[in-house]
């Protein structure tokens, strides 16, 4: 639909448990990234999306349901049901996730700072492959604040998996993860 092409750079499509983390500029991000995965992986992958937005109307729920989205409440975060807990619970030992660590769609050209969820995911489940993804041009297809898409071509670059290094601090890790996504832009 968005005419997107997918490039796997130093990374193979596999069904092992992964967390794909990507830059976030458009509502289409999750949809396009999810549908660009091979079918067998797609059925095991869930996109993490904001409940306050995607649960609002029947149409949005339908879209979220069609990509098997995991809706997370951004506003009422409870201690015993933290988003990271919910994500890990939803993954079980078969599923993979798509997350957008910027936390919301970014309206500028520069990628925002990553939120800490990715770090805690990596810490609690060190076996997960954390895969950086750069989504190019979708912000022009459907930018923040617009509701009619323009059919430009987009490109998804999936990079080499990374893990949380032992003794790596939260700040260092998030910076490294952000750089990993950014680097894919120029490949």
């Amino acid at each position, binding site marked *: 639909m968005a*005419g997107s*092409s997918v490039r796997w750079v130093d990374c193979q499509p596999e069904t092992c448990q992964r967390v794909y983390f990507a830059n976030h500029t458009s509502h289409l991000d999750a949809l396009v990234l999810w549908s660009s995965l091979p079918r067998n992986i797609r059925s095991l992958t869930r996109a993490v999306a904001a409940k306050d937005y995607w649960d609002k109307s029947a149409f949005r729920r339908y879209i979220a349901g069609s990509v098997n989205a995991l809706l997370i409440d951004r506003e009422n975060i409870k201690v015993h049901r933290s988003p990271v807990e919910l994500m890990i619970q939803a993954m079980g030992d078969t599923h993979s996730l798509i997350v957008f660590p910027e936390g919301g769609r970014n*309206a500028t050209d520069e990628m925002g700072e990553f939120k800490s969820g990715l770090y805690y995911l990596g810490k609690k489940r060190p076996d997960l492959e954390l895969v950086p993804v750069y989504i190019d041009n979708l912000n*022009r297809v459907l930018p923040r604040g617009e509701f009619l898409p*323009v*059919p*430009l071509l987009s490109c998804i670059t999936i990079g080499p998996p990374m893990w949380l290094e032992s003794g790596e601090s939260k700040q260092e890790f998030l910076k490294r993860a952000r750089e990993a996504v950014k680097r894919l832009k120029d490949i």
Partner: protein
Amino acid sequence: MMIENLHFEPLLAFLQSADWLNTPTYWLVFVVIVVLIAASVIGQTLNRQPENVVSPALLRTFNQRVRAWWMMFAILAAGLLLGYTCTIVLFGFVSFWALREFITMTPTRRGDHRTLFWVFFVFTPMQYLLVGVGSSLVEPQSASAIWWADKLMLRGVDLYGLYSIMIPVYASLYIPARIALSGDARRFLERSAKIQFSLLICVYSLSYAPALAHLDLLTSKPAVSNTSLSTGDVLPREIGDEEPSDAELQPSAARRPWTEGGRGGLLFYFILIVQLGDIFQYAWGKLLGQRVIAPQINASRTWEGFVGGALTTAIVGALLWWVTPFRIWEAACMSFVTAVMGSAGGMTMSAIKRDRGVTDTGTLVQGHAGVLDRIDSICFAAPVFYHLTRYFFSDVA
């Protein structure tokens, strides 16, 4: 030859609806198929030769080109065979895709989003709708056409007056105004120009190719008679169809309506000439190319290629005169102009790509062959070919 054709008469009669395609066109299509098969065979044969015979890079380019030509030919032939409406829709989609590539390649800003939506979903379909209706309301044939013509008060109106100015006038004024409404003034003129240019090249110019079908073509060729060997040889069916009074009333030197030809055939001829122009220019450039026209823009386009390509195209175009309403020397002139415009288009697109730092519009997004790379020369040649044909070979008085 007569007998062979008679054998296929029922099939041809079905395909020859009205004056869209006809026997000369099928001969041309046949020739093209033979040439393409020959090119494929040569490519595959050379592929098996040891590497020192021909350079592998050149051979790879050649084989890729042959594949692209097969693809283009198949798509165009399918469109033409399915009739006029399908051809219009086909060109509409090609325009849409080319526009997509162009805008993807050109940076725009957030404020341009709504304008782009208009460009893609209003102006592009509108242009092809207008071209598609074209002159069919001048003398509406079917009941529904008459109903629509009366309803819209367009009976007797040739929409040429609208589709030839809609994009250069209305869209060109609308685009900057709509961008201004978005409230983002940064690089305003540049952004307007980018969108206007992309619409002009990818949609407006290209739409002139299928618009060829609306011209009431005139020809200065002598009227076909039963004794004529030149064209009568390949036109057995038209001889039978032609009303004798028509041929007798017209003095052979004066211009007369071109009844023996197919409009779809003229479109096919045009596309073929543009492609041949590209090929000959490339071939001459490889063979004798010494003086590069503009190394900053494109290192492979040389003056030798340009002149040799245009002249060779003129010769081949002249040899194919029998598909067109043109006489031999007229066909040569038209082909020459078409080839010159084609290289102008290629040069312009090279400049744009060089400015954007890409070699092919297709490489921008991997896995997509660049449609824009294939049609840049067609875009530049189509309006000129159309207007020359309209002015010199059609009844527009």
